[in-house]
């Protein structure tokens, strides 16, 4: 193992390189990320044996990835914001045709107004596309999850694409020390992909057939079942990864939840700030905790419900807004997950950081204090608060 200074983008590119991907197809539209730019350098320098396909749009990029994946190849690409929006149609085709593609997504705001900074609007807009969605907190996690993503995606019981989400700029462009595994260790952890079907002229088959009222429903059900398998597979893969890396992953990570009265639930880099604030507040005797989801789709509802059942108040942080919806996407999921509990925590939604608006420790402390007040009084002051917005 070696510690290397890397941005989140570089960490993802390095992980894809060590995962020995056969094909990368990309067209990084503005705002572009450095992930495929860095990967193209590996190709130019002869460091990888990957076929790098330059296409003319992000829609074509994912189309080329789908075709390549169906031949049995290991496929990687990356995108962001408007590019992911342009891929939208193909996202469903990748998951529907059961292509275990791994894609790095640098989460950024969607236009309009034009903005290139970090929030989760892009991926939340593609929430129901049938992709496994993982959110990471820092470059180390971006590296670790990219390698694990291939193994989860390619599992026989899964065969679904994975989006590894990293916060635009905050993770993608910030450099940190990343503990990098040796190439041989990654190769041993991640053997060659064993596809179930391949496009092969010697054994012809039809892919992308028409399924009307007769079978479409059944195939969507089958896809949903594959999603259900993810949690078990992820558990197995994480344990294997822990054995080779010493780093432990799962569906989520908690801090201080054992005795917490108030908790914050969030995704991505915000978790680091929240944990730091929680640590400080706990030292002052305030019982607060943090739950950071690594896995967002499939949503680990059962596990989350068990982890939060004894908390009195939960503030759910959404870095994307769903205009007209009762809550942001993450908060809606948390409310659904806790719905069946007899004695459930009071929940409120915090919409924050849209368009890359910075989130400070003092902002999170404010929310924690509000949640502690709710825990004491049992009353929610504001169902949905817009943290730090100018009204």
């Amino acid at each position: 193992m070696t510690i290397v200074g890397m941005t989140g983008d570089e960490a993802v590119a390095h992980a894809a390189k060590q995962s020995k991907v056969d094909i990368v197809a990309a067209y990084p539209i503005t705002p572009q990320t450095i992930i495929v730019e860095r990967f193209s350098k590996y190709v130019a320098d002869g460091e990888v044996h990957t076929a790098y396909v330059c296409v003319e749009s992000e829609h074509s990029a994912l189309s080329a990835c789908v075709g390549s994946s169906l031949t049995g190849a290991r496929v990687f690409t990356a995108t962001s914001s408007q590019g992911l929006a342009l891929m939208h149609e193909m996202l469903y085709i990748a998951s529907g045709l059961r292509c275990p593609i791994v894609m790095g997504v640098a989460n950024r705001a969607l236009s309009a107004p034009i903005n290139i900074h970090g929030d989760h609007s892009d991926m939340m807009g593609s929430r129901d596309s049938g992709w496994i969605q993982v959110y990471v907190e820092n470059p180390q996690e971006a590296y670790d999850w990219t390698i694990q993503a291939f193994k989860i995606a390619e599992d026989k019981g899964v065969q679904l694409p994975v989006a590894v989400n990293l916060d635009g700029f905050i993770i993608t462009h910030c450099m940190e020390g990343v503990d990098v595994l040796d190439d041989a260790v990654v190769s041993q952890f991640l053997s060659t992909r064993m596809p179930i079907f391949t496009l092969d002229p010697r054994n012809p088959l039809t892919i992308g057939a028409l399924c009307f009222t007769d079978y479409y429903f059944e195939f969507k059900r089958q896809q949903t079942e594959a999603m259900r398998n993810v949690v078990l597979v992820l558990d197995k893969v994480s344990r294997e990864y822990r054995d080779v890396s010493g780093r432990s992953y799962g569906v989520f990570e908690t801090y201080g939840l054992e005795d917490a009265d108030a908790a914050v639930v969030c995704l991505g880099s915000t978790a680091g700030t929240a944990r730091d604030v929680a640590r400080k507040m706990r030292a002052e005797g305030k019982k607060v905790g943090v739950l950071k989801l690594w896995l967002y789709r499939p949503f680990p509802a059962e596990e989350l419900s068990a982890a939060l059942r004894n908390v009195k108040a939960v503030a759910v942080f959404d870095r994307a807004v769903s205009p007209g919806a009762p809550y942001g996407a993450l908060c809606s999921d948390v409310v659904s997950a806790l719905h069946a509990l007899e004695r459930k925590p009071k929940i409120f939604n915090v919409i924050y950081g849209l368009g890359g608006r910075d989130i400070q420790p003092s902002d999170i402390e404010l929310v924690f204090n509000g949640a502690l007040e709710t825990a004491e009084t049992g009353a929610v002051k504001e169902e949905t608060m817009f943290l730090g917005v100018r009204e």
Partner: protein
Amino acid sequence: MPIGAVVLEPGSSLKYKTGDWRAFRPLVEKEKCVNCLLCWIYCPDSAIVRQEKWVEINYDYCKGCGICAHECPKDAIKMVAEQK
């Protein structure tokens, strides 16, 4: 059921008869047909059947698009509304 709606048997489209999609039926007037085979080239469903001196239509697969009638230089193919 194979995953991802993969069809394992090659050539299975033959089992999917599309003739009942047809609203208009192409009728070949054999005496006008010169067997130039333009219709055979243009038919998107390979539903033109070659005979020695003229062509016939395979109504199991013909969807009635009318391209054959449009392309025929001798007006030997007429599109007639299907009666059901």
